[in-house]
């Protein structure tokens, strides 16, 4: 137990929290915006997987990390566009559409991985690129703090900016106001001339963009290759974080960090030979309990009024 305490009080551990939280932050921001708009996107997992594969593959083809990142974003947005097209135009149920995208991503990426790398496991045989890490001048020279704050992947810093951007988008812009109005009461929004379909499409595409960043981080930052189902539940954790954060930007970001700590802890435990199976369930347990408490509270309130 003492060695565990030693481990988690190191600056390495705190550094790793930022690293594991990065994809959660991106995806949970996507989840917030789509959910607030009334079109809950549950295909975060699949979209990140598609982005992770695209980032790896196109950076290998072009030998440019930037092109890899751009293609990761393009592909994730394209597939979220597919989801938006079916749900908004053909009225496919958004949850079923999400399941379809997840299944498509899980099998489709393995399908293409086999075609390009002749391997159904990983892409290690393809020399793909990684996105650069950034050392912040001055801060990087500080003891401890420098090691924690500086030297992260560029997308880690971007994920923090994404939180601020999403907050600004939803709270301060006309588009954000429209997104909230559409999610709150579709008919009312429509009656004042808001194009509901367009706003919801933008929200789904935005969640695709966020997943694009999150997925690119996985194969071009977190590690330097693609492996099958490498998102391994991060999309679901992000969904949990968004649920626990009560569809708010800051709440979801905070919960993402808490879940990131749980993830870092399970990694640390696993590295010491402990079983991490149960630790991995902490975010889900926490969310389940959170939802329970919240629902019971609302139920009691509504009973009192009645």
């Amino acid at each position, binding site marked *: 137990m003492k060695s565990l305490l030693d481990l988690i009080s190191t600056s390495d551990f705190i550094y790793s929290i930022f690293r594991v939280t990065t994809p959660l932050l991106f995806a949970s921001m996507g989840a917030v915006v789509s959910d607030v708009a009334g079109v809950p996107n549950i295909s975060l997992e699949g979209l990140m997987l598609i982005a992770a594969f695209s980032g790896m593959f196109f950076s290998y083809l072009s030998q440019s990390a930037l092109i890899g990142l751009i293609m990761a974003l393009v592909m994730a947005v394209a597939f979220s566009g597919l989801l938006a097209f079916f749900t908004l135009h053909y009225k496919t149920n958004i949850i079923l559409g999400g399941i379809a995208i997840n299944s498509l991503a899980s099998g489709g990426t393995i399908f293409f991985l086999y075609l390009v790398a002749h391997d159904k496991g990983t892409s290690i045989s393809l020399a793909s690129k990684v996105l650069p890490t950034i050392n912040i001048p001055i801060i990087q020279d500080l003891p401890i703090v420098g090691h924690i704050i500086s030297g992260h992947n560029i997308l880690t810093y971007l994920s923090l900016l994404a939180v601020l951007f999403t907050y600004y988008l939803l709270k301060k812009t006309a588009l954000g106001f429209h997104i909230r109005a559409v999610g709150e009461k579709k008919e009312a929004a429509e009656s004042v001339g808001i194009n509901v379909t367009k706003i919801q499409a933008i929200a789904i595409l935005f969640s695709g963009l966020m997943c694009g960043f999150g997925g690119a981080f996985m194969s071009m930052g977190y590690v330097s290759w693609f492996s099958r189902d490498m998102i391994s539940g991060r999309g679901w954790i992000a969904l949990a974080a968004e649920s626990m954060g009560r569809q708010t930007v800051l709440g979801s970001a905070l919960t993402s960090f808490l879940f990131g700590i749980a993830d870092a802890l399970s990694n640390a435990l696993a590295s010491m030979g402990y*079983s991490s199976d149960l630790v991995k369930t902490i975010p889900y347990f926490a969310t389940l309990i959170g*939802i*329970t408490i919240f629902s019971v509270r609302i139920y009691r309130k509504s009973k009192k009024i009645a």
Partner: protein
Amino acid sequence: MNREKSFNIIRTLFSMVAAILVAFIIIVMVSKNPFESIQIFLLKPLTSKRYIGNIIEAAIPLIFSGLSISLLFRTGLFNLGGEGVFYFSGIIGSILAIWLKLPPILLPLACFTASAIAGTAVMLVPGILRAKYNANEMVTSLMMNSIVLGIGSYILNNILRDPSVANLVSYKYNSDALLPVILKGTRVHAGFLIALLCAALVYVYIYKTRSGYEIRVTGTNPKFAQYSGINVTKVIIMVHVLAGAIAGVGGMVECLGLHRRFEWTGLPGYGFDGCMIAMLANNNPFGVVGASLFVGYLRVGADLVNRSADVPTEMIAILQSLIILLISAEKLLKKYRQRWIEKDVKEVNHEVAS
């Protein structure tokens, strides 16, 4: 048959044909001998007893999860917990299948009972939260999937794992627990009969009992159900109990029918497949059997193409997601439906007039 019903059938057929056409396109783009591969994909699964056996084998778990999900969908519930139930009930049942000592027929029965109880317990968490406190069952059931995966892997790693095998698998099941093969020359096991029995029971329950009627009314219009004196809370809990028990037995059937040890290291995917099956079947229990056989046929075809040509089996995931997207697309082909309904109305008017 009314127009609405035949329209649903046409949309289903449309999705199935579209999936097969996309399979052709994929094969043509990837395979070196596209025509031969297409022939293998379409016809070879039906050419031998062994392959037909493979189709049935593949359909068995899909029937269970399809039945479970169709009950939930029919009640208007979006519970995606079948995934976790399959896995977790398999783990719990496996404990008995490894260590319990009972005579042949009783042992699998004991395992099924345990797995049905485990499945029900897992399903009841989102079920009760939804029925009593109106908590969104979709989110809570997804959380349960990940929770039971964690608990299940803990049990597998620390209690069930056979250290003498390199892979992560459990100890061998007691051979008395295994389900017998019912078709010689194939691996089709008694689980198929259990699946058919379940489909028949669900059919009788849904269409011939009072409780089944309440489920149908609640699914069509929950407000109306409430006003007409149906206890909706009870209906929702009842449906979750049944869905959990069916999926639970399904998980165990798959373990005892095809494997000699517990072999799943992650969620097996049958829960989400069940959504597709339920939609293809339009929530009809016998439709579930047909849809499962169809998807089983696609899978065996894809597997055979994979073996003889260079087309990865994962092609099937692309076909499945297409089926889900098309079949749940309410507005697809709507123009034609509109025309039909108008024609219907005109006919009725005509009759009334004359």
